[in-house]
């Protein structure tokens, strides 16, 4: 993983090894493979828990989080949110011992560590069974999003 530099962009894939939940990881891995060594200001990270973000925010000015999104989207649908202008719908976490993405971003704001620009890119997903591969529409959508991000960061 690239070292994070001052004035840098941080691209984080949130996910797990379970089915479509790998979407965030697939996007970021796709970007990293093709950008490796070319970008000095973009760092890529894979996270299992949103709270991992809190370890990586220092000196980051632009944060992009890619994550699977289950509700209110179609399979493979790509959506783009600006935080905090577009409030992400909060659902109660299935694990109250972990902070969800909105809580982590709120906490980063409170602690004065939220980057100036925060984007959330979501991929519409449906199946999260343990040990399964991501579905084809999700894989295709991840490739499309990785390509979009590469174009966005072509000059980064």
């Amino acid at each position, binding site marked *: 993983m690239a070292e994070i530099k001052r004035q840098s962009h941080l691209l984080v894939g949130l996910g797990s090894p379970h089915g479509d939940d790998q979407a965030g990881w697939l996007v970021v891995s796709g970007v990293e493979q093709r950008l490796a060594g070319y970008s000095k200001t973009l760092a890529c990270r894979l996270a*299992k828990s949103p709270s991992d973000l809190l370890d990586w925010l220092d000196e980051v000015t632009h944060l992009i989080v890619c994550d699977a999104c289950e509700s209110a989207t179609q399979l493979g649908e790509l959506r783009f949110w600006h935080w905090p202008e577009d409030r992400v719908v909060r659902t109660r976490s299935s694990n*109250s*011992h972990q902070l969800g993405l909105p809580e982590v971003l709120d*906490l980063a704001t*409170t602690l004065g560590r939220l980057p100036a620009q925060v984007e959330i890119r979501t991929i519409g997903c449906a199946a999260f069974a343990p040990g399964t591969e991501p579905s084809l529409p999700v894989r295709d959508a991840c490739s499309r999003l990785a390509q979009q991000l590469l174009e966005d960061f072509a000059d980064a």
Partner: protein
Amino acid sequence: MTSPQNTRTIKVEALTRVEGEGGLFVRLVGDRIEDVQLTIFEPPRLFEALLRGRKLEEVPDITARICGICPVAYQMSSVHALEMALGIEITEDIRRLRRLLYCGEWIESHALHVHLLHAPDFLGYDSGIDMAKDFPNEVNRGLRLKKHGNQLLEMLGGRAIHPINVAVGGFYRAPRRDEVAALIPDFEWGLQAAVDTTRWLATLDFPDFTRAYDMVCLVHPDEYPMNEGRVVSTTGSSWDVRDYEQEFHEDHVAHSTALQSSRGERQACYHVGPLARINLNRDRLSPTARRTADEIGFETPCWNPFRAIIARGLELIHAYEETLDILRTYRPPAIARIKYEYRAGQGCAATEAPRGLIYHRYEVDDAGLVTFAKIVPPTSQNQRQIEDDLRDYLPHILTEDEAATARHCEKLVRCYDPCISCSTHFLKLTVQRDG
């Protein structure tokens, strides 16, 4: 007959900052408390039935799934019980690695609880996020300490949540010396941070509320209890773990999908957790934890449940100090896992989860299949005690401001750091007033 106009109902629809989903119902006639129920409505998870017919090697991985915050407690209790059934004696090296893994779980669980779940109650905030505005250093420290616990679990357990490296007989893989040594600088920082945490916790303002508790935990002659020991009560009684079920019983109550534990013929409630451990094991805390307890004037036995947050701080220090000791002297064990032959048998074990005593018993057949499983988590054991505490505490805090009453109730419930998902295996308080 009581008049419906005099019925008062206070509801906490959703108790936050606990793990799992449940509610609290209080019924009052005038100012007399008629009924207190910790209502747990999270669906039963039926792990004991799920284990029947499974290979015994699957048990530590399946039971780890009972909880995301204390999977090690389930793994440790299950492997010790199965090892008893199979007649396996583990080596001292494996034993130390198991304590190291348990230290990781205590660190992540206690660090999260004291900084982000319970401290906001004492400082007047609705959440750890709100508290972070005025206490950024404390919140950042809590997050960093929790991460250390996760790092230890990842290194030794294969991953931070639901570890996969614990085996009957030991570990599937012992860590390399360089992996272990790499953690030392973080844990040296963490030990001092844990001391700072405990000094800070000691400055909180605690309600003046004490009770004559029957506190129960493991006691081991040589060490602060984690993986083994006798079951001991502050009343002076003690039991071999094999006699646990003769003294401690579980009953179903209509308002809870979790079984409630009680003790003895009187079916009395009892209290498990860090306060019980400190009260019965203060002399076996690590040197820095003992010194800090003396420095902050933490007197034992302590019968104020709100001070359990300080007990957690002291255990945090202990866990860091023991971790450092193991990390600094670590040599990879010659044998990471003891081989065994299947045989029909039965075994049980009790260990100390972050939130208290946990008991497992298994029966296996000569093909290595589980034929019976019994799992008693700490929150099941504390449920009746929590209801009893609330019955005693409510008269001190009851006002017409029902939201304030509910907040006080939640604060008391959180002293137990309940893990409701484990006990079925969030809280809704209903107070109904008659008269």
